[in-house]
């Protein structure tokens, strides 16, 4: 809401308070001032000057060389305007001046003659005839000859003004107006508030046509119409056009300007119809199916049956509260005006405006809510202006329908109740004073702390004592609160959930492995499935779609983390960050049933890249994570389409795949623009989080000596180390403390298609010292089983 300070001054006796002081007073009571705007900020160093000499330029057929007196010095200025004469008083942009549109004026040579400034037209100053007479002539803006030389031009064209851009909260539609804010400013600064006095004379009704008003929908609770006859459509006075300009409204003509002026000043939207285009009567009703209207913007709108219209007996003449019809508005030859002031349902206006994609200052205002009081205030203010500006004659006839003024709400409360949620004792007299200053008539029941408060109709936001508490503390001052520490509250046990604790621990493990936590949006692109080569029927392609996404790249809710992980990898690589370990623990959204909330599952993604990274480095991290949960998992080659088929693994827990990891498939690398090898993992954490915290139990540590033996066998290439290890464990049982791979050899001495695999075995028993014969027996049984199960030969 734009609040010009001089307009505010008309209703609040703020004297010479600075814009900053007023902004501070508003902030104190809950109205944040987003910006203090100086209306003339676009113009600098332009002053009133007199042309004291004007000669044709010797080297041009249209330029003049002028000597100009700006009150301080005489300047030579070359001027190209056709209307420049000696003796003219005109705006002069001095050297270093700024003009609207970012134009800077510097001294310069024009066809061999130096010019130390520029004489300006109205257009160059960004004004037209509505702001200052003569602004639209072809040439310089001619000012009255008695204008003092050197005067800042911004004073002359009404731009030496400050405007506050006030942010009004949604609960205070009554403050979407100059008068509403004036009431608050006055109360906050403790100065007098004077509402406008609207006086006008009426002329006798002469039986001319005055439409009857009928309300046929409960979306309109109040409709009032007045008749203005002998209207002369003209330009508005400059002061009005200038004020409208300060709030961003262009002046049109006297009638339209008055309705706009009143909208800003009182917050009441008004509409004026040319009576010639109203057939018989006014009916406020919802549109009929298939009805359409061409609005003032020249566009045709198809109306639905929940949309409120103002109609005559034949057709809709306006979309209620949003825009009038093209053919019923004010024309240059309009003589009789039907002026509407009404209260429409804010939800209905909002929905209709949205459905039609049509917004206006009026609909924006109605959406916030217009109260009963403002219908009368706005209408009366408009009529007073019509009378004052002699726009036409107000006829003594009314067409009113709906509820005139509902009863005012009365809240019975007490000082102690009001203070109960504030926490400090505010004297009852102070409460009474504050509420009365806000026009909430408050009476103290004598000798009690009971209060009877009458709520003005404009304050539809006030419903119970809590709202009054807010009004009181807002003005009493939040700085007066004494901080306390829940002195009446019970002691409670706080803490994080088991799930959160497990995730925190997992993050410690992953950070310990050198991985940095990343965080990506919950959205992915529709193309993710294709980019990852997912099968057409892959369930991860079934995503919840956003109805109003920001863009295609963020149009679906993610069902996996890998897409964003690969995108992050691509970004890092493209920026020359070649070595990184990243992980993310985040939610994916698995649709269950249309219209139902999806299942939100927590997944883990790990992404490694760098010259020292291999399948085994990411495997190591994955294993650390799995070990943290203390689960037994099984590995098998993965069929994930986005992973290298030979360098990837699925993790199986109780026979179910819970995740996969490995090297990214070369085609997928291409799809993401990834230029170096990337290893990634994605694991569904839900089954792991269910296992709960892993509490290890003590196992006996043997005190007997250990015996080390190496064992090398030759096996077929496709035989995996994992299988061999399983066999060795199986053969040796509990006396084998550990077995580790220490070499794989292929080449000379080994038949092609075979490899030699060497293991270091460590034997130790919990019961006795193992002797040579025990070790002999154990290794023999290992060799035997390796040969039987894996076709291994001792090397």
């Amino acid at each position, binding site marked *: 809401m734009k609040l010009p300070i001089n307009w505010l001054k008309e209703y609040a006796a703020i004297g010479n308070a600075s814009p900053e002081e007023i902004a501070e007073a508003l902030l104190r*009571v809950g109205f*944040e001032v987003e910006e203090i705007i100086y209306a003339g900020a676009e113009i600098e160093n332009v002053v009133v000057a007199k042309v004291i000499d004007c000669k044709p330029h010797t080297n041009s057929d249209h330029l003049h060389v002028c000597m100009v007196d700006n009150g301080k010095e005489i300047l030579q200025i070359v001027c190209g305007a056709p209307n420049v004469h000696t003796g003219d008083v005109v705006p002069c942009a001095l050297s270093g001046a700024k003009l609207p549109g970012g134009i800077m004026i510097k001294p310069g040579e024009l066809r061999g003659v130096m010019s130390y400034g520029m004489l300006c037209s109205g257009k160059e100053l960004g004004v037209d005839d509505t702001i200052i007479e003569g602004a639209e002539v072809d040439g310089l803006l001619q000012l009255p000859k008695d204008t003092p030389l050197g005067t800042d031009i911004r004073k002359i064209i009404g731009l030496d003004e400050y405007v506050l851009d006030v942010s009004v909260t*949604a*609960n205070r539609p009554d403050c979407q107006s100059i008068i509403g804010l004036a009431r608050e400013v006055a109360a906050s600064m403790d100065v007098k508030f004077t509402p406008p006095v609207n006086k006008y004379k009426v002329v006798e009704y002469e039986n001319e046509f005055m439409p009857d008003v009928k309300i046929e929908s409960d979306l309109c609770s109040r409709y009032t119409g007045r008749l203005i006859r002998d209207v002369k459509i003209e330009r508005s006075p400059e002061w009005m056009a200038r004020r409208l300009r300060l709030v961003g409204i262009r002046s049109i003509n006297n009638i339209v300007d008055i309705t706009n002026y009143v909208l800003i000043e009182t917050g009441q939207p008004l509409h004026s119809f040319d009576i010639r285009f109203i057939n018989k009567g006014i009916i406020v009703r919802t549109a009929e199916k298939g009805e359409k209207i061409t609005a003032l913007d020249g566009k045709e709108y198809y109306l639905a049956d929940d949309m409120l219209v103002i109609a005559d007996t034949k057709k809709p003449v306006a979309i209620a509260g949003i825009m009038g019809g093209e053919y019923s508005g004010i024309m240059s030859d309009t003589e009789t005006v039907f002026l509407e002031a009404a209260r429409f349902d804010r939800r209905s206006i909002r*929905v209709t405006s949205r459905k039609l994609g049509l917004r206006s200052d009026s609909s924006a205002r109605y*959406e*916030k*809510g217009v109260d009963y009081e403002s219908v009368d205030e706005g209408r009366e203010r408009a009529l007073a202006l019509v009378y004052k500006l002699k726009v036409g004659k107000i006829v003594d006839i009314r067409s009113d329908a709906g509820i005139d003024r509902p009863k005012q709400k009365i809240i019975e409360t007490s000082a102690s109740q009001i203070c*109960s949620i*504030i*926490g*400090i004792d505010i004297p009852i007299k102070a409460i009474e004073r504050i509420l009365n200053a806000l026009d909430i008539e408050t009476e103290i029941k004598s000798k009690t702390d009971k209060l009877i408060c009458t709520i003005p109709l404009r304050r539809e936001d006030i419903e*119970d004592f*809590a*709202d009054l*508490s807010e009004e009181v*503390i807002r003005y009493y001052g*939040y*700085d007066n*609160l*004494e901080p306390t*520490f*829940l002195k*009446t*509250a019970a*002691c*409670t*046990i*706080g*803490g*994080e*959930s088991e*799930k*959160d604790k497990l995730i925190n621990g997992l*993050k410690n493990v992953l*950070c*310990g*492995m*050198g*991985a*940095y*936590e990343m*965080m*990506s949006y919950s959205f992915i692109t529709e193309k993710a499935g294709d980019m990852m080569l997912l099968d057409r029927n892959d369930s991860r392609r079934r995503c*919840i*779609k*956003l*109805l*109003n*996404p920001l863009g295609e790249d963020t149009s679906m809710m993610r069902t996996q983390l890998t897409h964003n992980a690969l995108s*992050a990898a691509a*970004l890092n690589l493209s920026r020359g*960050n070649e070595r990184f*370990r*990243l992980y993310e623990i985040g*939610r994916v959204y698995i649709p269950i049933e249309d*219209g139902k*909330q*999806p299942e*939100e599952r927590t997944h883990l993604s790990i992404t490694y890249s760098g010259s020292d990274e291999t399948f085994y480095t990411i495997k190591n991290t994955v294993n650390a994570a799995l070990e943290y949960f203390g689960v037994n998992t099984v590995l098998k080659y993965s069929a994930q389409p986005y992973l290298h088929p030979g360098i990837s693994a699925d993790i199986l827990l109780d026979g179910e795949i819970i995740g996969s990891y490995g090297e990214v498939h070369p085609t997928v690398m291409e799809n993401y623009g990834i230029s170096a090898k990337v290893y990634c993992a994605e694991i569904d954490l839900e089954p792991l989080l269910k296992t709960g915290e892993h509490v290890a139990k003590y196992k006996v540590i043997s005190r007997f000596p250990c015996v080390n033996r190496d064992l090398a066998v030759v096996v077929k290439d496709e035989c995996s180390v994992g299988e061999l290890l399983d066999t060795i464990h199986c053969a040796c049982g509990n006396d084998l403390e550990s077995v580790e791979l220490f070499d794989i050899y292929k080449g000379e001495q080994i038949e092609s298609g075979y490899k030699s695999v060497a293991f270091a075995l460590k034997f130790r028993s919990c019961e006795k010292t193992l002797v040579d014969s025990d070790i002999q027996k154990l290794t023999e049984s290992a060799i035997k089983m390796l040969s039987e199960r894996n076709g291994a030969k001792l090397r």
Partner: protein
Amino acid sequence: MEEKIRQLTQACSEEISAAGSENALYAVRVKYLGKNGLISDLMKGMKDLTPQQRPVMGKLVNDARSALETEFTEKGNQLHEAELAQKLAAEKIDITINKGRSVGKLHPLNAVRKRLVDFFVSMGFEVMDGPEVETDYYNFEALNVPKDHPARDMQDTFFLGGNLLLRSQTSASQVRYMEDHKPPLKMISPGRVFRNDDDATHSPVFHQLEGLVVDKGITMCDLKGILDSFAKHFFGSDTKVRFRPSYFPFTEPSVEVDVSCSMCHGKGCKICKGTGWIEILGAGIVNRKVLKICGIDPDEYTGFAFGFGIDRIANIIHSIPHIKLLYENDIRFLEQF
């Protein structure tokens, strides 16, 4: 004989002193004290002496031998130490080289989230988690924001069709919590929220932390007390807190809370846009209607709620200029915090 012993002893002593390595010393030892060494040879010459001379000479030879043994040991130790020192010196490495990788770090947002959670948990707040895909009811309706209410314009919401939306505020968790728990309540709910807003200062995804206390006799002063200590904990012990009246549909009275700028200490700087104050959260007394909707008697219990942006706090603490940096996942960014 005596003279010979003296000469040999002296010659041996000199050779011991001259020995430059443990090996050389060993050679000397073999030469003099070995089985066929020069001193041992003396003993062999004993048989030529008279029985009277033998014990005397025997003693002399033994004395000389043990004196030389001592010299060998001392010299041996000396040489050993010198050689070890030399070996160690030769093994010296360049300790300024780094190998292996550093430990990773939490994302700055989660590091701050953890600090926030720890702070409130220490005061007995339970941490609660709610769904990010919410229904209109929990995100708006139950929070006193009916359909088509202008308050809905305060937040640009992402819609998913039907009744579903992406929660635009963690306040959505308030109602769920109050449905399941009865007072006394102390709860925080940190989490991800979404708004259809994407420019230099807004990210469509960001994080909030909602706090809720419901008990008997809770007041605005309690809210101030908690937020005072929170601000001091996070922004320094000289931080001041300012309440400004505001409006949220689910609290009444409602306030915006500013803290004095920790960068300029209230003098005015770029961070606080010259005002000396930084807006960090919204709060208020839980609206009586909301309590009623959740089945809590507003005449018996009151409460306060607050909610702030974790991203914003992280950006203030770490002087991060743009919220977007948080979600780019450039490793050079993540390594900094």
